């Protein structure tokens, strides 16, 4: 597969910038880069899920234009995503041959031919699965294998694997690597996307590093070491554009929030930390480390199975978002459309929702007061809207996010937790939100800034915690270089 000068933009964001990439036959090619570097976008372009803005894609030396993933699939390109695309209640064999069934002359499914086909392919790869077992009864690792077989039956010449070892045990990873080698000797190329550099060095022939939508370099694995790859992923340490003035942290203050040994299976396994008024506390880590779960836990969105939460050194019971709000904790959730905003309602109705009591007198709503506070936030956060009455779904992503922030700001929280607040937002709005965060801290609010984008966390935070496998695995003060954080984050594989 070859791509030349591939470009893709979304409103306000250049996701891929002049990408040139070549993947040879019989090669395992690793694609690495931070969150937001453009890996997902590239995959989606290769398989026809997105349409490119400009550039060319060649597959087997022929120029291709895929209108849909189905087309790419037919042409021999398969993707194995993190979330599997199998039908849970169908059997292994039914899933593998879905859409490729052989029929008898009577039009019935030819079970024998299919079974034979299955035997051939699994012998080729050297493993066996229970063919008549329902997929939902298999473990994650086996399901991944089913997906690989499915790809092969559909005559894949090129398989893209996105974070294939997530949720796999050491043994299963070994097995997967052996199978990838088998694929290679069967002339199937593999594009392997992962965060775990140790794996890259075990299995990949070449590595391509993406950063901010650009291709940095493609190298032979044997020619580089881990640190060099990390440096390519992260780039030069950027000067801190934001932390030129200290936030509102005063010396000797009590922590406004303290959590001890928070537990919630399976994601949170004993988290303890302190957060102070006037500081921006960044929390970062890989996807699946437990960041969103932690945020939701502190806010009472999910039930706590163990541990303590203390506000101003007093232990509090947070069993629901209502309890959290009463104790001055607010959360701006990761998925703002699903969890934070009511899209068919107007802007002002969304903003006043958490504290509606304050906007009513004897049960009757005071619309004037609602409009006033909405206007206040429109001005303060520069929300682009046609008015307080505009229906939420017509605002752009960045402005929706500002609305979500306004909604929680007007509760005047002591602790504001923001989960991936700049996800899917254009660069300009991103900077605006960062400024809002710093100003909030200056005014004495404790902001917990959760994000998987390390560069962003480094810019905005006074202190940074790294979360791995549901535990705090590192703590840094502002001024730390991105690489140091990346090193701790990627320590999984040691």
């Amino acid at each position, binding site marked *: 597969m070859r791509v030349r000068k591939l470009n893709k933009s979304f409103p306000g964001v250049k996701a891929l910038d002049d990408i040139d990439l070549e993947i040879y036959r019989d090669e395992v090619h690793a694609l690495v880069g931070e969150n937001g570097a453009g890996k997902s976008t590239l995959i989606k372009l290769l398989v026809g899920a997105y349409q490119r803005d400009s550039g060319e894609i060649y597959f087997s030396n022929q120029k291709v234009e895929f209108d849909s993933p189905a087309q790419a699939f037919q042409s021999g390109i398969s993707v194995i995503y993190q979330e599997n695309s199998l039908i849970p209640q169908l059997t292994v064999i039914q899933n593998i041959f879905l859409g490729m069934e052989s029929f008898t002359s009577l039009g019935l499914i030819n079970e024998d031919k299919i079974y034979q086909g299955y035997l051939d392919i699994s012998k080729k790869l050297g493993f066996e699965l229970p063919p008549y077992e329902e997929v939902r009864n298999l473990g994650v690792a086996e399901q991944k294998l089913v997906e690989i077989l499915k790809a092969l039956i559909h005559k894949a010449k090129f398989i893209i694997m996105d974070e294939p070892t997530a949720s796999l045990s050491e043994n299963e990873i070994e097995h997967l690597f052996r199978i990838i080698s088998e694929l290679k000797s069967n002339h199937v190329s593999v594009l392997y996307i992962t965060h775990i550099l140790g794996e890259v060095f075990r299995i990949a022939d070449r590595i391509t590093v993406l950063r901010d939508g650009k291709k940095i370099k493609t190298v032979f694995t044997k020619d580089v070491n881990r640190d060099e790859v990390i440096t390519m992923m992260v780039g030069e340490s950027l000067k801190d554009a934001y932390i030129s003035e200290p936030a509102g942290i005063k010396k000797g203050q009590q922590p406004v929030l303290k959590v001890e040994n928070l537990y919630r299976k399976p994601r949170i396994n004993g988290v303890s930390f302190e957060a102070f008024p006037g500081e921006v506390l960044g929390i970062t880590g890989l996807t699946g480390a437990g960041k969103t779960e932690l945020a939701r836990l502190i*806010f009472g*969105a999910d039930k706590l199975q163990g541990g303590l939460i203390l506000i101003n050194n007093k232990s509090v019971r947070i069993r*629901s*978002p*209502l309890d*959290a*709000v*009463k104790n001055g904790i607010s*959360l701006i*959730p990761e998925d703002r459309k*699903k*969890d*934070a*905003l*009511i*899209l*068919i*309602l107007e802007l002002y*109705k969304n903003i006043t*929702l*958490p504290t*509606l*009591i304050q906007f*009513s007198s004897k*049960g*009757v*709503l005071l619309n004037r007061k609602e409009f006033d506070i909405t206007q206040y936030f429109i001005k303060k956060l520069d929300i682009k809207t046609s008015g307080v*009455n505009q*229906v939420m*779904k*017509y605002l752009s992503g960045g402005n929706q996010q500002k609305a979500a922030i306004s*909604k929680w700001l007007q509760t005047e929280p002591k602790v504001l937790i923001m989960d991936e607040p700049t996800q899917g937002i254009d660069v300009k709005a991103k900077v605006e939100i960062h400024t809002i965060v710093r100003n909030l801290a200056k005014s004495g609010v404790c902001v917990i800034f959760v994000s998987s984008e390390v560069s962003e966390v480094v810019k905005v935070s006074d202190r940074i915690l790294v979360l791995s496998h549901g535990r705090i695995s590192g703590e840094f003060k502002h001024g730390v270089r991105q690489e140091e954080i990346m090193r701790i984050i990627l320590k999984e594989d040691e």
Partner: protein
Amino acid sequence: MNKKINLNLKGYSIKKNGILFVFILLCILLSIITPGFLSWANILNILRQSSIIGIMAIGTTFVIIGAGFDISVGSLLALTAAMCVGLQQHMHWGFAILLVLIVGALVGMLNGFLAAKIHIPAIIATLGTMTIVRGLVYLYTGGYPLYVDSQSFAFIGKGYLGPIPFPVIILIIMVIFWQFILVRTRFGRYTCALGGNKEAVRLSGVKVDFYHILTFVVGGLMASMAGVVYASRLLSVTPLAGQGYELDAIASTVIGGTSVSGGEGSVVRTLIGVLLLTIIANVFNLLGIHIYVQYVIKGAIILTAVGFDTYSKFRE
């Protein structure tokens, strides 16, 4: 990129108020074809015919805005009507009415509990209660019609205040009252919000389940009020009372522009929907169109009204 069609003209959404235009158009048309259509007598007649379903549909509107569904209201009407009549053997009709209103609210609370806390899909939950309540009606009446003979009680369903039938007065007052609640109170705001996105409302620190159940209580309360009016009009109740009323109530609600996905709707527009169905039924009767045909037409209207709403949302 997709074009977002913003059907907002000076704050009035064509989509939402489309039914109002249709209604006005129809009235104008009919007043041309049938002189006397817009006479007071006829208007009051239409309102009176719409009052029982209309009162019931107010409750249905609240439930559907809250993204719920309630098909037990027809059976509930029968139960409360039967009890209202039957209890008058033991007490004054004033207390009987009070009691059945409480029964209605309690059944509503049960529906709400099953839907909100046990998470039975509302349509299935109310299917269950509908069957149970209908069974209770049979048990209570022993399978026979119940009668009552009280002129003061009959005033509710048959009396007039001036030229206006009393049920119409009840209907108008209830519409104004509940529309106010929906648009201008916290309860109404929470109802719209949770119908639009229940999880987001929960994560905003609101007691969603409480308000969700409350919408069903309103549904049950209005159904029982409709039952009282029904009993008072006929001064008798058979075990088959109210069968199919839920269809008309829900049809009126969705024709009136309340979205089945929840979050938006209006009691006033539901009233328009009720009037529309009544007028269409009247016209059909006058034209001698068989009742069976009316069923077909009614069903087609429901599909058109709801389909228009859901499909345009899908396109967005």
